């Protein structure tokens, strides 16, 4: 069964992947450093939002806490890639073996994924019994706890101060590859036995429990995988700007990623990816307008601060007209695939 499901649905990650590659090529063609950085930023958001989707989309439980895993990942990058000498002054409390460690950025991303997954397992074992709003608030409490600890553990995290010296990676390809890995991993999880079971539990909790699905366990698996993706994203985020601080990975990031997921449509992987691409593009366009666009000889510019107001208003409007998000519950697929698959895929409920 899983092979046929894989064949039937693989067009979705492939199409999404091609879209991401197109963005990377655009950056290449434009060739401007700031634009390159903009695309890197978009890829990082894709990683975060896809990571969120693995848990939220499949379980239906809103989590405010996932940026905690990005935080854990970001500090792994700090702990393992900064030159030992710098580390000694900024974070003198690190154990010797960690102090001496200096690994390439991709290894730190892998390690970050593992470390975040480990903590997702520990937190998840406790939290996954909860449902609904209690689970949401508990994940928020988890985030606040992690944030409070990282903001104050002077000797190991340098507290609220920015940790610098993380090697900056300005090439776009590692971020593209990581985003592709996230998309394909999320897809593979979605069609796996565990993913199907979790979605069944989301839609029909009573029936799923009756048919022997252990819901907390199914959620835990999703939590760990999404934690790993967030951890990887956190480490790469650190490498993209060269610094980490705890408040980078706090409510601001939590809300913007959650908004992208919901606006895109948390019911489908395509919704997660498109939510990022659409909102990021919108933000970028609004920034151009704010900076001023020359029309003929006059410059037309929005007053500063309008960008955020417009973004909020557009988000409200999108949700007003498409409460299930832009994609509803549909996934991107080729027209033929969509026809053969029409039974299982319902249109957006409005």
């Amino acid at each position: 069964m899983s092979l046929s499901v894989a064949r039937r649905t693989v067009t979705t990650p492939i199409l999404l992947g091609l879209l991401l590659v197109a963005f990377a090529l655009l950056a290449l063609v434009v060739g401007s450093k700031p634009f390159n950085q903009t695309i890197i930023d978009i890829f990082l958001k894709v990683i975060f939002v896809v990571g969120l989707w693995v848990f939220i989309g499949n379980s239906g439980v809103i989590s405010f806490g996932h940026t905690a895993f990005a935080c854990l990942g970001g500090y792994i990058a700090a702990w393992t890639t900064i030159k030992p000498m710098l580390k000694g002054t900024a974070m003198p409390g690190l154990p010797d073996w960690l102090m001496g460690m200096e690994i390439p950025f991709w290894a730190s991303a892998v390690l970050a994924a593992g470390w975040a997954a480990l903590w997702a397992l520990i937190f998840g074992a406790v939290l996954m019994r909860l449902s609904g709003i209690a689970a949401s608030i508990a994940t928020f409490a988890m985030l606040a706890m992690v944030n409070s600890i990282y903001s104050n553990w002077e000797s190991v995290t340098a507290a609220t101060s920015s940790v610098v010296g993380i090697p900056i990676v300005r090439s776009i390809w590692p971020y593209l590859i990581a985003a592709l890995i996230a998309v394909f991993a999320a897809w593979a999880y979605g069609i796996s036995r565990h993913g199907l079971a979790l979605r069944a539990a989301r839609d029909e909790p009573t029936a799923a429990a009756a048919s022997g699905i252990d819901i907390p366990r199914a959620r835990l698996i999703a939590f760990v995988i999404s934690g790993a993706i967030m951890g990887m994203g956190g480490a790469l985020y650190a490498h993209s700007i060269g610094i980490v601080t705890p408040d980078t990975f706090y409510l601001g990031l939590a809300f913007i990623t959650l908004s992208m997921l919901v606006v895109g449509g948390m019911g489908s992987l395509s919704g997660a990816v498109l939510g990022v691409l659409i909102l990021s593009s919108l933000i970028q366009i609004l920034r151009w307008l704010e900076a001023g666009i020359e029309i003929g000889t006059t410059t037309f510019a929005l007053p500063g601060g309008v960008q955020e107001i417009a973004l909020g208003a557009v988000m409200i409007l999108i949700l007003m007209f498409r409460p299930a998000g832009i994609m509803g519950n549909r996934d991107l697929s080729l027209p033929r695939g969509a026809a053969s698959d029409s039974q299982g895929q319902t249109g957006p409920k409005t």
Partner: protein
Amino acid sequence: MGSLLQVIFDAAALGSLYALAALGIALIFGVMRLVNFAHGDVIAFSVFALLWPSVDAVAVVFAGNLPWFLLIPFVLAIGAGLSVLSEIVVFRRFRRANPATMMIASFALGFVIRYFLLMLFSSRPKSISLLPALSQPVEIMGARIPLLQLITITVTIAVLLGLIAFLRRTRFGLEMRAAAENFTMARMLGVRANRVIMGAFALSGALAAAIALILGSQTGTANIMMGANVMLMAFIATVIGGMGSLAGAVLAGFLLGAVATVMQVILPPDARAFRDAFVYGAVILVLIFRPQGLLSARGTKERV
């Protein structure tokens, strides 16, 4: 002895703030299952309404110069008005949406309000002298307590009593309680949905404004982010109190204030910075052992 009394007062004053905010959130959650993330921004807006828009560092006071008996109703009306407006313009269209969509919409609305304030006033916190007479200390049984703290506690108790009387003794209150428990059933008994929801928003907004007054006179600052922290604590209080249970929200609000205050007192200096981590840890524990909340509202089924 005096210092123990002082700790009790400190805890009660902080708890009062959280309880008032939690009540505002629970009221709206009760009638429409909306977790309103714009609440904190309504708090900030209510304070900024006292000032003229200006990006200078010095605050240009506008309504803030009113005598107290005009100033207080003015601020309450601003909070209630903004809250009702947000219902009419935004939330009314989300009645049938799922909680996640509503929540993100409320967050987006808060974002709009916040950046609107930012554009008008810049991010620099503005100083205001709000009800300055309240900054004097008073002596009670050996404890010197800021008058404001005393007033905060008194006001909270008065608001709570007033709200209880309103909910128990008036027809509108009865309809609101019924709607909070089972909205559809209440409508089938002829309870007008829009009126009840607008009533809840108005009350919630007025509560936000009350917090704005207290925070404003306590801190002497109008700051765009001033509502955020109180709001987060209030959410937690609402959930661990039992979503939809007004009494639970109040109880949990006081409890959170007490826990935070006591932690500050008993933790050794090195651990004090981690106070919030302990508080949030306690929150997780409460949720694990009582996921339905301390006082779960009977018959409140969550629509998820």
